[in-house]
């Protein structure tokens, strides 16, 4: 075990992939300078600016460039600096990348990774703080990964780069600099497999991204009340490891789904619907969702803090079900 950060693990995964496979290249705004969070720091020095390609602020075009390069046999890792800007890349991701394999009758593949990051909590305002994963999970042909911990972000990124499909890899900016324990020799983490971070018999908490650690904090507090919560991190939303979630709910008979995205139309609704369809007879209470309110993310600290869902909301939801 060693202490490191989520961000350093991402950076390490990029070094690993570029050393192992000359087809891998990194492209995006300011990537050769390391980007605003230093996720790509040092890559240009080792691999040159031919493989660590700075671009103008042209999200639509650079997404298309990455897709075309992927179709022609390269393995691009495209950075969209903030997920809020994925709006500008959606035509290429939704209409081209997601459908190329299908519409070509299997002739084309698009082994593309789109790294991006979302999340509020840093006073970024409503255009630099969103959680927009459910837009992407709605598109057949895209895979969507949301790593929550330093311990498996490196292995997940390695798997995303090796995948023959377009994978949207959604990081969270508030996780970047947390120091955490990670195994010294991290294994690739398969896409599509959930991780059980805490076992419990009374309630299942399925949490995404930043809310995984919040779910664990809620579980600690619930334990003080005599409630044993099981905490699951799906890690990948598409494909979703529904089997692990359903198996847990069949034991605990209660489910809380928690994410930072707006609750309305969020991915939690999909999890809730899928679980009730698969395990309706096992449920002792309606499934609870924890998410942000239906407003843009406010800038001012008191309002942003109140907006953000976290351990408190998860705790209250779980306790309410057991009441």
């Amino acid at each position, binding site marked *: 075990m060693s202490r490191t950060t989520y961000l350093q693990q991402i950076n390490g995964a990029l070094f690993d992939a570029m050393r192992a496979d000359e*087809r891998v*290249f990194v492209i995006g705004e300011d990537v050769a300078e390391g980007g605003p969070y230093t996720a790509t720091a040092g890559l240009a020095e080792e691999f040159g600016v*031919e*493989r660590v390609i700075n*671009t*103008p602020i*042209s999200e*639509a*075009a*650079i*997404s*298309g*460039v*990455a*897709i*075309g*390069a*992927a*179709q*022609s*046999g*390269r393995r*691009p890792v495209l950075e969209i600096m903030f997920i809020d800007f994925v709006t500008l890349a959606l*035509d*290429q991701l939704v*209409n*081209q990348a997601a459908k*190329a*394999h*299908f*519409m*070509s*009758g*299997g*002739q*084309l*593949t*698009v082994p593309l990774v789109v790294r991006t990051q979302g999340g509020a909590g840093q006073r970024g305002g409503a255009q630099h703080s969103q959680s927009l994963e459910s837009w992407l999970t709605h598109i*057949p*042909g895209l*895979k969507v990964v949301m790593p929550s911990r330093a311990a498996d972000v490196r292995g997940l990124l390695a798997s995303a780069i090796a995948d*023959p*499909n377009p994978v949207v890899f959604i990081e969270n900016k508030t996780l970047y600099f947390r120091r955490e324990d990670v195994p010294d020799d991290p294994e690739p983490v398969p896409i599509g497999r959930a991780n059980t971070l805490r076992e419990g018999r009374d309630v299942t908490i399925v949490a995404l991204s930043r809310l995984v650690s919040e779910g664990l904090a809620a579980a600690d507090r619930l334990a003080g009340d005599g409630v044993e919560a099981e905490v699951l991190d799906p890690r990948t939303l598409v494909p979703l490891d529904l089997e692990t979630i359903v198996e847990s709910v069949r034991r605990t008979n209660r489910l809380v789904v928690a994410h930072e995205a707006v609750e309305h139309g969020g991915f939690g609704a999909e999890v809730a619907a899928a679980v009730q369809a698969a395990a309706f007879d096992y449920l002792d209470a309606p499934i609870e969702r924890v998410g942000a309110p239906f407003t843009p993310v406010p800038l001012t600290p008191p309002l942003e803090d109140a907006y953000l869902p976290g351990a408190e909301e998860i705790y209250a939801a779980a306790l309410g079900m057991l009441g």
Partner: protein
Amino acid sequence: MWRIRHFEERVGQLKRADEVYGLIHLSVGQEGVAAGVCTQLRDDDPVYSGHRAHGHAIAKGAPLERVMAELMGRDGGLCRGLGGSMHLVDVEHGLLGATGVVGGNIPMALGSALAARLAGGDQVAVVFFGDGAVQAGHFNESVNLASLWELPVVLVCENNGFAEFTPRSAHTKVERVSDVVAPYDLTRETVDGNDVAAVWETFGGFLAAARGGAGPFLLECLTYRLRGHYEGDPAKYREAIADADWQEKDPILRLQRSGLIEADEAAAAEQAARDEVEEAVRFARESPYPASSLSDELTYAT
């Protein structure tokens, strides 16, 4: 060119008979561009097209019967019936994609050009688009990028004067597409796209330079769309061209008048094209529809 002409005219008939599916955009009248460009390319030169793609696919080498089967939604189609008229792909012959989103193919062609450079290859990427795409954001972003990175790509604009249902003058004050890109230091040329020899010659020069690592290039081909925007479009927004005028413009008749091809050779080519198109229709009609499991099989690559 006869192969494209007869194919397109036959597809128009089949559309009226409801034998081909989806939105069908024919390139009758624009054959000179496809032929003048694609026949000079290698199979490993990546080509991208738009919604009016049949001619480009055929000129790039896609077998007629597999294009026809695709339009009929059959398993024997290029894309096993999952793409259709606006999404023709033939990787074997270097057609890496046609798109129904106007202009969306342009940055992808840049990506294929970039891939060729990264791999140390000498492939040249070509992208076809209409003048309607020029007003889209991704065109302008792509021209800037292609120029900035000096990519081996030829942007081929088929300027037929109409963006969907309205004339170019309703979309922009800039009449010539080659003028739109003037500040970007592209090598650019506007030619008569209905003169296949002119297209051939100018494109050939661009291709040779791009093969040697130069780029990017923009070739604007002024052409004429004989049909409406799509099959079934009554085209009330423009006057029908007089027969005599069309005789003057028709790229096939012009080639035959030019003396570059003997009359009997032209007649034989036309007859062979007719026969080949009928054979394609027969093949497509006999090809089965794909199994219902195909959608699930091909949503993700494995």
